[in-house]
């Protein structure tokens, strides 16, 4: 067993940083898409008829009840069958958006329903339609409450992005895996891998702590 080699660590660092950047790109895109889709589906769930809100409920139960790895494989194999040929990067973003949106829907719906029911009743009594009440009165208040759990969920999305290595997206985990098994450098890679993830996710967790403190005040 040899000790840690600083030279090796510096040697692999540019590759690792490049891969970390891909991870950050994927996560940033996923975060934007899944929050947008979460709001869209939460709106359907809150305003839609019985059929459409049940459909959203089924989607949510599916994304929460099936392992992320299985969902990623499903998207990877199902998209080409549907005639959508995306590269690995965008397949990965689609899969993570699918996973993230399921959680975002429930967080947003939970926040809206945790608001006092009088808010909606007052808005409707003042002559706003249900849709106006939701967009002009309930969502602006609910967004504040969704922020802490949403950032928490986004940290989970970053962790889930490591699973994209199984569909050969060139993100942090995949690149590290390649270095470990092609060049047999174990400790150096694992340490840099852990440090990079801790930095990325640590930032998000710290942000979520901060937002939670502020939401309490």
């Amino acid at each position, binding site marked *: *067993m040899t000790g840690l080699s600083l030279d090796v660590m510096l040697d692999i660092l540019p590759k690792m940083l490049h891969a970390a950047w891909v991870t950050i790109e994927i996560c940033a895109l996923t975060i934007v898409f899944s929050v947008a889709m979460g709001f869209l589906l939460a709106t359907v769930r809150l305003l839609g008829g019985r059929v459409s809100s049940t459909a959203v409920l089924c989607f949510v*139960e*599916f994304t*929460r*009840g*099936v*392992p*992320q*790895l*299985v969902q990623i*494989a*499903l998207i990877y*194999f*199902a998209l080409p*069958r549907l005639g959508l040929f995306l590269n690995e990067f965008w397949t990965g973003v689609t899969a993570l958006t699918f996973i993230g949106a399921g959680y975002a829907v429930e967080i947003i719906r939970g926040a809206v329903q945790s608001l006092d029911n009088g808010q909606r009743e007052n808005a409707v009594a003042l002559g706003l339609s249900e849709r106006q009440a939701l967009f002009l009165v309930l969502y602006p208040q609910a967004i504040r409450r969704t922020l802490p759990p949403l950032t928490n969920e986004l*940290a989970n999305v*970053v*962790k*889930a*992005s*490591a*699973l994209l*290595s*199984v569909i050969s997206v060139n993100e942090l*985990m995949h690149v590290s*895996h390649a270095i*470990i098994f092609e060049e047999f450098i*174990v400790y150096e890679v*694992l340490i840099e*891998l*852990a440090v990079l*993830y*801790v930095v990325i*996710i*640590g930032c998000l*967790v710290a942000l979520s702590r901060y937002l939670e403190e502020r939401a309490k005040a």
Partner: protein
Amino acid sequence: MDFGYMIYALPRLLPGLWVTIEVSAISLALALIIGVTLGASRSFMTMRNPLAWPLDGYVWLVRCTPIIVQIYAAYLLLPKAGIRLDAFWVGVIALTFNSVGYQIEIARAAIQSVGKGQLEASLSLGLSQRQAVWLVIMPQALKRMIPGITNEMSHLVKASSVLSVITVLELHKVASNLQIQSFKFLELLALQALLYLPLILGMSRLASYLEHNVFAFEGTRPHTEEVR
């Protein structure tokens, strides 16, 4: 969809499902014991205690790295440390390592959410510190831990699918082996969803049953009617 193939594949997936249940159940049991013990001790520690720092660091590390990294780390580092186990037990160790980190937080949060007044009141009524913790604080805290722990349970089952990368023959690995032979991707993925869903939905049902029936005592509501 080829339903004939699905009927052919289903019995071949069941041993994998059983391994998934086994690996998650063993890890859950181990993690529950270790996590609740450590979390409970952590909640009665101050930051001056020398054990508080490493515990917090451990929780931070577990929560800030993806599970796949932890699984690879266990797979690569255990043999280097001279511990040679088969993939199943490496998987158990990796999942336990992961789950303990989360359960420490669950236990700590539950215990700290029980009001400080409870401890003070019990002490002033003449209970010893140990009696106060075990007879007053813990029953209330356990009740509050149930949702977090059942949540963690379903996370664990889902995380066990990642053990496929270190060749543990659990449900996802068995299914992907079949996929490579038959190229029936959608059929096998649908079957996996069908097998995972009831497992996880069943657990969330169990959670709400435990919450509403077994631990349904009112430990948290102030007994205003007894104040005269």
